[in-house]
């Protein structure tokens, strides 16, 4: 997998819950594209139009709290988001992201970030750069097994490849 992820920031606040990421009224489907069409709709009804392939969500505390619905990270990934950076994540959401192969980084960088900032995540160096804000943040290196799960496209593919 690539060691550098580059994209533009989509900035949100604290405690963005999975009910706003994908409201229950859409949970009768698990089709990724259908879910993506309604991603974040109750927070920003134009999210699906605004977001471009490769964009990065930059969030505050407790991103993804609430319901365990995996439809939430699926909707985010299918929207074209390449990674989510948050000061902290709710644990079920974090686990779901890794399991479906969406990269997540714990980093407190939301306070300096503005919508559209170009963000560079260098996994080898363990750094995240916000060029406009002239800031470099250190992040914990991603454990190898998590990188592997994500590069296989999720936990189940990884398990099958590993011969279970």
């Amino acid at each position: 997998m690539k060691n550098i992820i580059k994209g533009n920031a989509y900035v949100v606040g604290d405690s963005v819950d999975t009910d706003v990421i994908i409201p229950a009224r859409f949970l009768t489907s698990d089709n990724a594209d259908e879910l993506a069409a309604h991603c974040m709709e109750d927070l920003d009804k134009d999210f699906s139009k605004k977001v471009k392939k490769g964009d990065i969500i930059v969030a505050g505390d407790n991103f993804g709290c609430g319901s365990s619905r995996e439809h939430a990270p699926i909707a985010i990934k299918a929207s074209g988001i390449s990674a989510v950076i948050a000061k902290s994540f709710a644990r079920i959401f974090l686990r779901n992201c890794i399991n479906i192969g969406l990269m997540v980084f714990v980093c407190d960088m939301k306070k300096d970030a503005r919508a559209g900032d170009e963000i560079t995540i260098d996994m080898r160096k363990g750094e995240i750069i916000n060029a406009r804000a002239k800031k470099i943040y250190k992040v914990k290196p991603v454990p190898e097994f998590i990188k592997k799960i994500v590069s296989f496209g999720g936990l189940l593919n990884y398990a099958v490849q590993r011969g279970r």
Partner: protein
Amino acid sequence: MNYVENILSHASGRKSVSAGEYIEARCDTVLMNDVTGPLAVKEFLKRGKKIKNPGSVVIVCDHFTPNKDIKSAENVKFLRDFARKQKIRFFEIGNGGVEHVILPEKGIVKPGDVVIGADSHTCTYGALGAFSTGVGSTDVAFAMLMGKIWFMVPEVMEFVYSGKKGKFITGKDLILLTIGKIGVNGANYKAMKFAGTVISALSMDERFTMCNMAIEAGGKAGFVVPDKKTADYVKGRPGRKARNFADGPSAQTFKMDISAVKPLVASPHLPDKVGPAARLNKVKIDQAVIGSCTNGRISDFAQAAKIMKGRKISAGLRCIILPGSQEVYAEAMKKGYIETFLKAGCVIAPPTCGPCLGGHMGILAGGETAISTTNRNFVGRMGAVSSRVYLASPYTAAASAVRGRIISPEQL
């Protein structure tokens, strides 16, 4: 080792484990529902034919049932067919109810068990002394394939409650108090242990309520170390025997004297926006919801009925009663609660998650306000984006339904 470490060392076949370690553990129960199940099963079927340990897997269709539309009906049918082929336990309307109410009732979860469920409120079973946590659909698919799952052993955050519980103070008020104090991510990744003289005296139903909402503080699990009340609850129910584990020190301890606590409410739009109900008297409500995996058990309806007996709900307000299971429904009939609710002007819904997550059977219109005994008050949770949900105990929700505004039951 503490209680959680002892359970997890047993389940992982190790001599000892400690907080922060990654382990692979056996799961006694693997749970999914009609929202998270279809995804888990489809992912499973791409890679496997037979569930590794079919005896551990349970499907409960409760979120959008009785099927609210064609898509939900197809999802339930898909799960029903899968359950039949795999010979796994399957519950739907008629033999079921809300998952976290029926699993303990039917003896499926026992003290000392390891439980994972593709539903965030799986933490409820900690009230029985199980290590029980919410996961996603992929984790459930993985557990069906492999018969185990990976965990990080959590630290234990202990809450010790002392003092004399005031009138109308319930497990719901105690957990709201706790979430209000530590915040919606105050226990992120941690197991919340509820202890002290107040918990020893608390009913099993109220312990379920408290453990149910551990996730609202970010908790990986909530639990009460089993005692005589736990043993009495388990006695006479089918299923395997309880496993006993010793307890040990917790990483952090918080002590609270709850003698002065008054009935509490969490205001929109986070469960940690907690304050006294008596300070919200200006808030007019359109709907009251009493039920759910948080407060859908018999003693919850006993509390609501105590308030509503001989009274009527406020004109123009809707009050929806959702018994958590067939068993709870039957018991509420026998005890006369259902009649009390009907006479008060409430509507009785079948056992379902219904409006709690904005599914069906009581969705809010734009600008409407509800008081609810459920667990979440996020933006749009019960309907329109501009609707508002206040979380409270059955006493407080029932009293507010009678008044038409949020009040403390003491004010009625």
